């Protein structure tokens, strides 16, 4: 009996171990490709003058009176917007400054908003399909009417983009959705940028444009288009003179952690005709053993029960 138990544990461990380790390897190769009509933005940090027109345009475009706090309304009435330091429930887009502490002339701006990943962590994480990736435009969209407010999307985003209305009685998630409610189609930030530092188009066109700029001015940029492959590719692309990590864009692998996580789930919960195989097999195995043990006990019981009688109440 003891040796069978050990063997069972060994086999189980080996099985689970192997299935859990394999996803890393296959995740990279399974990177999905971008559709022909997927849209995105190209932000060129070297062109940005840091005027923040995009931040204000974004706020006006996406201003939601329902979720503003008293402070926001006061600021709005006085034509004086609260200046945010991070993305928050009312700031879906922000310009940040990188400053080299040792050299005043070494600085760069960075625009932060949702990158609309090819394999988004938030979409994979959301338990109820409140976060979805538009199959045509590739925009990652949020539906507050389905959202349960679990905030797993915030945990799952490697760029820390989704924000939450912490001050609200009935809060919701907030993130850039490429101004999908806009009739004009072009997101507010791209409409107002005076330096054309951020432009909106199909991703394929933007990628070609980014490559052209890199080829024409190799000295102006570091030789990388952030978002081309990072995290499995994102619909928003970045060019910069400064290291992307200094600008707050994390150094990520060329595959999405969402893919790794889904691979584990799909391996453990592989289905056959909508029936998850492993859990059903586990149930059957446990039921079989438990049944045998139950039978065996029935035989023993006849003798033992008589002894136990007379115990305290």
């Amino acid at each position, binding site marked *: 009996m003891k040796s069978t138990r050990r063997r069972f544990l060994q086999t189980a461990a080996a099985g689970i171990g192997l299935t859990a*380790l394999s996803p890393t390897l296959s995740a990279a190769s399974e990177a999905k490709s971008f559709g022909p009509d997927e849209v995105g933005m190209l932000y060129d940090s070297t062109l940005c003058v840091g005027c923040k027109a995009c931040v204000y345009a974004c706020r006006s475009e996406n201003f939601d009176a329902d979720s503003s706090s008293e402070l926001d309304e006061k600021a709005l009435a006085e034509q004086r917007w609260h200046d945010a330091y991070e993305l928050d429930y009312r700031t879906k887009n922000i310009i940040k400054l990188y400053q080299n502490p040792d050299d005043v002339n070494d600085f760069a701006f960075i625009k932060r908003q949702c990158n609309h990943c090819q394999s988004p962590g938030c979409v994979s994480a*959301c338990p109820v399909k409140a976060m979805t990736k538009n199959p045509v435009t590739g925009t990652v969209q949020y539906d507050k009417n389905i959202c*349960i407010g679990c905030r797993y999307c915030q945990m799952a985003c490697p760029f820390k983009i989704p924000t939450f209305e912490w001050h609200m009685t009935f809060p919701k998630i907030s993130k850039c959705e490429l101004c999908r409610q806009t009739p004009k189609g072009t997101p507010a930030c791209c409409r107002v940028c005076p330096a054309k530092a951020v432009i909106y188009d199909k991703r394929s066109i933007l990628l070609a444009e980014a490559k052209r700029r890199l080829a024409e001015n190799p000295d102006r940029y570091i030789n990388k288009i952030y978002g081309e492959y990072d995290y499995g590719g994102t619909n928003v692309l970045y060019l910069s003179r400064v290291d992307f990590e200094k600008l707050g864009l994390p150094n990520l692998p060329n595959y999405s952690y969402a893919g790794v*996580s889904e691979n584990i789930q799909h391996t453990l919960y592989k289905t056959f005709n909508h029936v998850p195989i492993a859990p059903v097999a586990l149930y059957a195995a446990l039921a079989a053993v438990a049944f045998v043990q139950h039978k065996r006990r029935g035989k023993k019981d006849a003798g033992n029960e008589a002894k136990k009688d007379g115990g305290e109440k």
Partner: protein
Amino acid sequence: MSSEHTYVKAPGKLITPTTVILALIVATGFSIIGYRLVFGLGVISNLSDGYPWGVWLAYDVAAGSAFACGGYSVAILCYIFNGWKYHPMIRSALVTSFFGYALAGLSVMVDIGRYWNAYGFMMPSRWQTNSVLFEVAVCIMGYTVVLLIEFMPSALETLRELKPNSFIKKLADFTAPKLDKVLMFFVVLGMTLPTMHQSSLGTLFVITGQQLHPLWQTNLLPLLFVSNAILLGFAVTLFESGLSAAGFKRPFEAEAFGVAKVVPIVGFFWLAVRFGDLIYRGHILTAFTPSFHMVIFWIETLLITAPIFIFLGKLNPRKLFYTALLLTLGGGMYRIDVYLVGFNPGDNWYAYFPSIPEALITFGFIALEVLAYIVLARLLRLLPAVHTAHN
């Protein structure tokens, strides 16, 4: 069934200084929940966009549901491995499991921002089966129901002792034998479901990627979490045996010594996976590179390793109780380290530490769990009848 002779009620009155104090802590916690429902999460908690998951999920759900794995661990031991030998321990284990899970579910409802949309889990059109959280949520809801069914025999048994002609007694008399026939199907479900969601509680953090410190981030999180849950299930069961022996002034349950001997088997398995994985991923040196996380890692590892070795040796009730307590702390710490301590969203956010109201809500839940256990143990026959404390 001869359960009258296998299980007994705990002695003592319902209203005692202990239960009154517990009730006050519960009341405090629930008042703050009321406040949270009106004024929002931000007012009472230290949660932020950087640390959107705090102590309610780390302690109440991740650690709490594993502390509630007594019913799971003892069931595996009892129904699978040793032919019902430890069956007398199962009832009290099931009760704590039920409260652990029910309260984990309740604290999730306090935690989620748009709780009125939670009915979406009942609508197949909204199921997002790629989501690890979906699996965890559905599985935990299912398991709570299974625990309730598994617990029914003890409740029915007491109801059947009511006045002969009462309606409830008749209903209980009618239900009990039918339940007895199908109970085994639920018992097996009660072993399958925790295997699923306890592993998924670990998988939840795979998607956080680089935000979780490399000492904890691994694709083996599901395996580590499920074996850690089994380990904790045993530890908590042993801890509770000691506690109810002292609290209800009963002799020590002899079965506990047998259960203690199983702990090292699971424990060494867990340690092997933990360190094997660190070596495989090339992060074993990270465990020896001085840092805050290194210290945390070794405290956690020692709190788990030491009890395993103590359990190998000779035990007495006192030693068993304290060792089980250490193991509970260590196992729970591992889970909290994954959910909070090892989690770092970047330099832009202040490190998270629970606010006082947040902690008070958690204390309220813990107090409710203990209170409900005391009350039920005195009303129903849950505890094993003690034969002799000598093994």
